[in-house]
């Protein structure tokens, strides 16, 4: 039986370094793989710019158009709720801010713990809703692969273990916290090799989309 404190120290020490290294190198490799491909020159006379519309689409594509919202309201609402919730829990929980400060040396104000706690609970419920939707919606069920369920699991685990640790639902506390940190590390390790890359590449994809449409004079 491993000592809970040793386990916690392992997750905070060597395991943390490994996770960060795999995440950083893996994600860097993917970005290089994308940009190395480049684009062929475009000789057609442009109707509009690329840079402006590209950056515009990075923001505007966060909100669904009215028609899509009407046709897939659950998809849009649940997706938005858990993404926003996930980032609030990740970036505005004070212990997380302290951790980021210790690694990167930058900090920002956080939210009171009870607020983050409530947001986390909502996010957990929304993610369960998203999973049920994926299993039941004919399109999502049809296009889903093993990877989709794997990614759901590794995204869900940091949330649920964080919630458990915060509420001291597992004893002893070092074990609960260690499990939460390990879950976050698994998330980081899996990230560069799965669709979780979208956390970074979404900005590139949206930029290209906005640029391709923008060149033709269409705000996308």
């Amino acid at each position, binding site marked *: 039986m491993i000592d809970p404190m040793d386990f916690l120290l392992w997750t905070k020490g060597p395991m943390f370094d490994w996770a960060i290294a795999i995440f950083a190198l*893996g994600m860097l*490799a*993917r970005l290089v*793989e*994308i*940009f*190395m*491909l*480049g*684009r*062929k020159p*475009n*000789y*057609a*006379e442009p*109707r*509009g710019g690329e840079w402006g519309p590209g950056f515009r*689409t*990075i923001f505007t*594509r*966060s909100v*669904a*158009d009215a*028609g*899509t919202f009407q*046709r*897939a309201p659950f*998809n*849009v609402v649940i*997706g938005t709720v858990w993404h926003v919730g996930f980032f609030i829990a990740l970036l505005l929980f004070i212990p997380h801010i302290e951790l980021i400060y210790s690694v990167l040396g930058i900090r920002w104000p956080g939210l009171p713990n009870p607020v983050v706690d409530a947001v986390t609970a909502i996010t957990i419920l929304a993610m369960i809703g998203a999973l049920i939707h994926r299993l039941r*919606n*004919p*399109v*999502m*069920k*049809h*296009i*889903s*692969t093993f990877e*989709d369920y794997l990614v759901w699991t590794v995204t869900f685990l940091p949330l649920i273990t964080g919630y458990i640790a915060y509420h001291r639902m597992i004893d002893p506390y070092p074990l609960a916290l260690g499990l939460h940190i390990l879950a976050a590390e698994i998330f980081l390790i899996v990230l*560069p090799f799965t*669709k979780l*890359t*979208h956390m970074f*590449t*979404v900005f*590139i*994809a*949206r*930029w*290209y*989309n*906005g640029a*391709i*449409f923008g060149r*033709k*004079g*269409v*705000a*996308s």
Partner: protein
Amino acid sequence: MSELSLERGLAAFREEIDAPVAAFFSSCIRCGLCATACPFYVETGDPKYTPILKLEPMRRVWASEFTLWGRLKGLVGLAPKVTDEMLAEWEELLYDSCSMCGRCSLVCPVGNDLQYMIRKSREAMVASGHAPEGLIGAASRAIRTGSPMGLQWKTLDVQIKHVESSTGLEVPVDKPGVEYMVLLSSMEIINFPEYLEAIAKIFDHAGVTWTLSTDCYEATNAGIQIGSKDIAAELVQRVVDAAVKLKVKKVISPECGHAYTAIRWEGPNLIGKSYPFRVFHIIEVLDELRAAGRIKTEGKETDRLSLHDPCNLARKSGVIDQQRNLMDLVADNFVDLKEHGKYQWCCGAGGGVSSNERAEHLKMAAFKRKKAQIEEVGPDRMVTMCATCRTQLEEGLEEFNMDIPVVGLTEMIAEHLVEKEQRA
């Protein structure tokens, strides 16, 4: 197009994968929202028509050969491969059930331009020998005769004579140094001869100099629809050669959506350089003439009119306000469909679907989305500016026993021109 093989298809996929494609596949979260933007899925309810799924062959090539993880998986035999059987199965998905309308590209929350990738995937389908018979026929007729429908100049010549005798105006042919070279589409020549008469009247009215070319009058590009850069480039080169020979600085693409995107956006890249002339859709030209006060109209249509934006013209080329400005000129009771402009729904016939006889049932299924849109606003007539859309609207509305005539915008403008002597 000899020796088509899986190997050539895979090579085409590799050649087509660029930074945007890699960014798009890296970003797909399989949320399925693209399905809700696709008329082929929405109207059939069959999840196999989900747009992102149509790109699975290309995604597999990207994942297994363009990512570190995919290459590692390939070493131990875990990366799923693209096979001939797979491409045969995907032929229906990439051609019959996709009009390349680009609506999914505008709706995808991570910003994937799916239509961009469908276009690219079709290159690999042609190279591997998995393109539909109907499109192969159209492409080879276009190369052989200059027209995807096998039309010859003498057919157009008969029509020119007819227009000249009914209007008393000259239809200029092979006149060098004029302002515009006018291109037509075979579909228009056969189904909508009133278009040629309309531009003859409008250009005479506005004092525009123009010409047709006997070397090249066909604007459509079957090479782009099927997905063959070689064929597409040859067809574009014919337009370029004709325009250069006649020393024109402006070329007009007709009331045809894909012809416009082909010559306007893809053409220069197919031949690898910019044109020595500019390209306009006829609607852009008419709106410019309107803005310059060179089109004087009288009277207005009083019945309830609505507008179908061709995907290639609106969403894929940014021509959205021009047709509305022109409608205002001649229509008193114009009402837009609810989702219009860049968010309009495809008629179901574009992207080669209408040249692919096998896709007939899917083409009509997809039309039901347009039908529902039309029913929402209940117009007396529909107006559009693409011969393929117009044919599809006419056939579709007839199929569903809806008594709504469809008219071309150019001819509607021509009908309202102030007579010359009145203007003087």
